[in-house]
């Protein structure tokens, strides 16, 4: 049989060679500098944590594939990204076994139960972090100093905690490693001690924080690369950051003594990495142009509300999870107008 002379096909005829795998590999590429900076700041413990969480995510993904009787989806790279992002949101000296639990929950509870990539309602990495935050509230708020002198020759004592065991108390170790270490994040120091961390400390990364949230400039650059390649919707980070800054500015106008300046609000905590890499998850964010703006503003304002009025010091995670849950509703309420049809809201 020779091939037919004319091949009949429907549009599209010209396709861009762009699948899930290519997008995901670009996201991994964009996250690598952030991960490398985290390892530079926190040393071996951060490296071990990143490797453990990714391995846990990949193993869980494979296990769920087997149980579900489908072909392996490891090669699409989404589990790698979930693991990498999750590790970057954890404290650098988080016990490895808890990191493995977080990775398992992220994939099993956050993704596989819904039917795999594309069907999940919530961002898997944040589901994993929310679980360990609820399960191990003490361990997830135990911070270690950045740039400890021995960070490349020794692990933090908590890293190798035996599975199911309580991590040892490291406050003495941390004080010995870095002089004047307080063990509180900039947000906690502002909230409970009313001490503002200077922007210079933020830029150099010499702050107490989760592994990957310290360098706002690096995260912005990596995000810009993805936005330029159109792998993330630039409107989401712009909306999140602008609305958070605006909220902070309004509060500062009302009470300059109590509330910090917008720059502090942007640089502290996980706002930038959350806005750039987690709120922009293609699966869990809205698709309509107006909906994307609404979603971003909602996350930005809610983050600041949790920070200023909530019991927690940081609210980015819950704000994004809440935004994810609202995304389908936002999409329904903001459909683009179809040509020739009346506007949705003028019908009544």
């Amino acid at each position, binding site marked *: 049989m020779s091939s037919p002379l004319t091949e009949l096909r429907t549009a599209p005829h010209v396709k861009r060679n762009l699948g899930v795998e290519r997008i995901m590999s670009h996201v991994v590429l964009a996250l690598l500098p952030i991960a490398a900076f985290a390892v530079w700041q926190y040393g071996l413990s951060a490296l071990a944590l990143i490797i453990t969480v990714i391995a846990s995510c990949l193993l869980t993904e494979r296990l769920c594939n087997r*149980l579900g009787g489908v072909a392996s989806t490891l090669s699409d790279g989404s589990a790698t990204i979930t693991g990498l992002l999750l590790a970057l949101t954890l404290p650098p000296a988080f016990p490895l076994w*808890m990191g493995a639990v977080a990775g398992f929950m992220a994939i099993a*509870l956050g993704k596989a*139960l819904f*039917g795999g990539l594309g*069907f999940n309602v919530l961002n898997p990495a944040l589901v994993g972090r929310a*679980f360990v935050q*609820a*399960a*191990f*509230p003490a*361990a997830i708020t135990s911070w270690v100093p950045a740039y400890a002198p021995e960070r490349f020759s020794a692990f933090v004592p908590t890293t190798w*905690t035996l599975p*199911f*065991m*309580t*991590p040892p108390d490291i406050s003495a170790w941390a004080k010995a490693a870095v002089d004047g270490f307080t063990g509180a994040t900039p947000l906690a120091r502002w909230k409970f001690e009313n001490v503002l961390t200077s922007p210079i400390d933020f830029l150099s990364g010499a702050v107490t924080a989760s592994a990957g949230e310290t360098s706002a400039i690096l995260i912005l650059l990596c995000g810009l690369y993805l936005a330029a390649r159109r792998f993330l919707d630039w409107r989401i980070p712009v909306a999140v950051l602008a609305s958070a800054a605006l909220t902070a500015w309004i509060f500062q106008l009302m009470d300059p003594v109590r509330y910090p300046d917008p720059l502090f609000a942007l640089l502290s905590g996980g706002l930038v990495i959350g806005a750039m890499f987690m709120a922009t998850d293609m699966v869990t964010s809205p698709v309509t142009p107006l909906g994307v703006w609404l979603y971003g503003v909602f996350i930005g304002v809610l983050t600041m509300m949790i920070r200023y009025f909530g019991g927690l010091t940081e609210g980015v995670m819950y704000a994004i999870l809440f935004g994810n849950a609202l995304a389908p509703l936002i999409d329904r309420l903001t459909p683009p107008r179809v040509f020739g049809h009346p506007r949705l809201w003028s019908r009544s």
Partner: protein
Amino acid sequence: MSLPGPKPRSNLEELLEGIWKQNPVFIMMLGMCPTLAVSVSAVNALSMGLATGFVLSGSTLLVSLIRNIVPREVRIATYILIIATFVTVVDYLIQAISLAIYEALGAFIQLIVVNCIILGRAEAHAARNPPLRALLNALGMSMGFTIGLLALGAVREILGAGKLFGISLFGPDFQPWVVMMLPPGGFFVLGAWLLFFNWFNRRKTPVASDKPAQGHAHV
């Protein structure tokens, strides 16, 4: 539900039905409120299972005995009255046996009266079957419910406190999973058990895949 099938069940099948095939927790999903609320430890789960089992067996037997003399119109009120009597009995019994357990279970002992397994069994089974069969079925259901509660309580106690029936399993350094003691933990563990049972039952009886085709589901 005991629909009239092609052949009548034997007494043994009647007893075993509630334990596996119609397990109140894992298959019928009845009585979720006490299941989720009191299953924070194995001891609580066991006492709740036994208390519910006592009420279930007693009320089922009584309902079955009087099934032919109760007018249809007032049957629900009659059943509730019978159930409430047994709940009162079990309420005082637990107070007398162990005040600690009574306080741990709290209002959920009195709430056995509205447990849907009990009224459901009275209406669907006891009112249509002779006393022996009704009692056998109720005993099976009670065991099934207790097993279900224990399955939840054991997992939650092991992960949430590192203990089983109050005995420490991992030594003093155990890191408790706080979330397992909170309400979300109950849902997580129940969901995990349901997943396991569905997976197991599907493995046992290979049927044609009922999975929706990729790309058509939940878009």
